[in-house]
């Protein structure tokens, strides 16, 4: 058995079900051209309600100040910054899929890159909202984010990691959006050419920028696409590194460590892939996209989840070791306190969800089981929230002076805001799957089995890729 798998000359078919090019358009356009299903409305209304709840809690915060939260001395960062790091991290998987896997010529990315990139953009938008509102007085304190001088030409401090963060996250959002839109142009054109309704046609013509599929256009398009992948790769690595600098550049024991940038990036990819699996398991079911987001796609993502989960586990262990090895009493105390102090439960939720539970993916049956992977991906999402919570709160709640020790738990207002931001994210994602092609048709067609001369239906199930000359830059 195993021997046969090694001998297999070509990879499994990336698109199953012997689809033709025209059927790709049919399948992808179907959810966009029909009235949304009841299931979609249930999800959408739930997301709206969650968002409404969050909006009420935010209003409560704006009205009464961040005293409505559990924050106090010495824990000045809590659920607010945890949520920010959580959502920025989630975004990273989308860019990994769209850019890094593109550079590595991983053709399987084509089935999932569109929705993963959309997830990136919405996650970064959510992160932006959390960081805007975490000051409590947005109308006074959100402006310092923008780099502009006062009347005496005093600028924000460009040496501060918090200011780096502003640049990193805004650049990340802008470039991800442009990259995503660039990829959407030919697919919107496909949807446009199917449109019957006049207003729909006009809107899609404008959104597709009048794309006609000319190869002289594809030439520049492919070149730009490759460059986007090339610049997004260092960008995505820089973004979570810069987020980690918010902590690592400070002098708080538990934060002041050199392992933070790679550790944060690995954690970000880990949590992001978990969110991609959570979303795609649902989307492929609800929109009949099982031929495009196949079990092989999901299995590959589960392998990445397991790998990055172990990287994160290594970082947990190494942090502990270095805390002991450093000889610093404060470092040592912080880490022992993390695991066995008042927040032991948070620490062990983190370790269980992120390190122990993904080990189930060693078993092939679990990697290819939709219910198992869905549950594990939810655990990873929870675990990664707790990772940021552990890093932020346990490092702060024991100050250098025992007289300044304290504890922190999020108030119901903070939980409401967290729920609201989840709703915010899902509103956008649901609108995306409703209005835009969730599969990159133009890229999927390039990696499908190509029809060859004489045979109109040249695609054969089972992955014979002899006729494959397509793929553009993906080949």
């Amino acid at each position: 058995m195993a021997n046969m798998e090694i001998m297999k000359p070509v990879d499994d078919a990336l698109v199953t079900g012997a689809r033709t090019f025209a059927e790709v358009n049919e399948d992808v356009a179907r959810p966009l051209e029909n009235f949304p299903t009841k299931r979609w409305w249930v999800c959408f209304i739930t997301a709206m309600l969650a968002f409404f709840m969050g909006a009420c809690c935010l209003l409560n915060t704006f009205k009464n100040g961040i005293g409505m939260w559990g924050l106090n001395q010495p824990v000045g960062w809590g659920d607010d910054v945890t949520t920010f790091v959580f959502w920025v991290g989630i975004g990273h998987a989308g860019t990994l899929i769209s850019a890094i896997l593109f550079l590595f010529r991983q053709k399987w990315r084509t089935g999932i890159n569109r929705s993963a990139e959309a997830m990136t953009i919405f996650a970064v938008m959510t992160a932006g909202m959390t960081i805007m509102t975490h000051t409590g007085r947005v109308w006074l304190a959100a402006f310092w984010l923008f780099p502009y001088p006062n009347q005496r030409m005093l600028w924000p401090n460009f040496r501060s990691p918090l200011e780096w963060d502003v640049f990193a996250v805004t650049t990340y959002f802008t470039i991800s959006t442009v990259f995503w839109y660039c990829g959407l142009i030919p697919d919107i054109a496909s949807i446009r050419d199917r449109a019957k309704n006049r207003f729909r046609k006009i809107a899609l013509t404008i959104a597709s920028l009048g794309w006609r599929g000319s190869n002289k256009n594809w030439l520049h398009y492919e070149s730009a696409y490759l460059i986007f992948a090339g610049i997004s790769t260092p960008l995505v690595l820089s973004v979570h590194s810069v987020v980690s600098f918010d902590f690592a550049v400070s002098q708080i024991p538990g934060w002041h460590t050199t392992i933070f940038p790679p550790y944060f990036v690995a954690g970000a990819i880990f949590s992001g892939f978990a969110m991609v699996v959570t979303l795609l398991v649902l989307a492929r079911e609800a929109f009949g996209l099982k031929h495009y987001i196949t079990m092989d796609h999901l299995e590959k993502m589960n392998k990445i989840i397991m790998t990055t989960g172990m990287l994160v586990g290594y970082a947990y262990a190494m942090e502990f070791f270095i805390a002991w090895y450093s000889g610093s009493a404060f470092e040592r105390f912080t880490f022992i306190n993390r695991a066995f102090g008042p927040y032991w439960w948070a620490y062990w939720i983190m370790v269980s969800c992120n390190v122990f539970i993904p080990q189930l993916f060693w078993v092939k049956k679990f990697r290819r089981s939709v219910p198992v992977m869905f549950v594990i991906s939810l655990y990873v999402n929870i675990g990664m929230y707790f990772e940021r919570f552990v890093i932020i709160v346990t490092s702060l709640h024991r100050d250098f002076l025992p007289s300044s020790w304290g504890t922190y738990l999020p108030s119901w207002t903070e939980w409401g805001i967290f729920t609201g931001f989840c709703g915010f994210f899902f509103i956008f994602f649901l609108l995306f799957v409703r209005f835009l092609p969730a599969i990159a048709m133009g890229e999927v067609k390039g990696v499908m089995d190509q029809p060859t001369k004489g045979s109109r239906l040249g695609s054969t199930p089972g992955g014979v890729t002899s006729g494959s000359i397509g793929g553009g830059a993906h080949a």
Partner: protein
Amino acid sequence: MHKPSGPQLAGVLGFFDDPESLMEATAKVRDSNYKHFDCFTPFAIHGLDAAQGLPRSRVPYVTGVFAFTGTALAFLWQYSAHSKWWPHNIGGKPLNSLPAYVPIIFELSILLGGLATFFGMLYFNGLPNLTKRSFDPSITNDRFAILIEPTPESVDDDHPTPPFAPEQAEQFLKTLGAKDVRKVYNEGWFS
């Protein structure tokens, strides 16, 4: 059908059912006397640029120039803010603390380079294209087309270009195996 007296002739369009036939036909058109032609495909086909004889895209140069502009601007900006406009001693760090400027220098290089890539791509492609309608809805679906365009009027009197004969071009495309060969006209999206 379209009347010749109406909109301007865009050329002669012929369809192919698979990328392989398109590629072979394209190479033959490239080697023929028709110097103005283009392919229309639902997705980017690897190798078609060479078959069509297209030079490399110049988008990377645009990216490079703007990315380095971003690098320079980000350094000058931070240096001026902290060393010239209002020098502040923050934590005893030197006024011009270059290593601390690196993250913003990097981010702005990417930002300018990326935006320039996008707008450069649009510029080279003549997008947004509001005036020329797509020739056929199947082009964004599952068919591949070659368009032979009329040669522009020659300004060289010694070597006048022969007038474009659409019927000849139609015949030529048919010999290459094209289907549904027909004349197409430049029309607006909403006309």
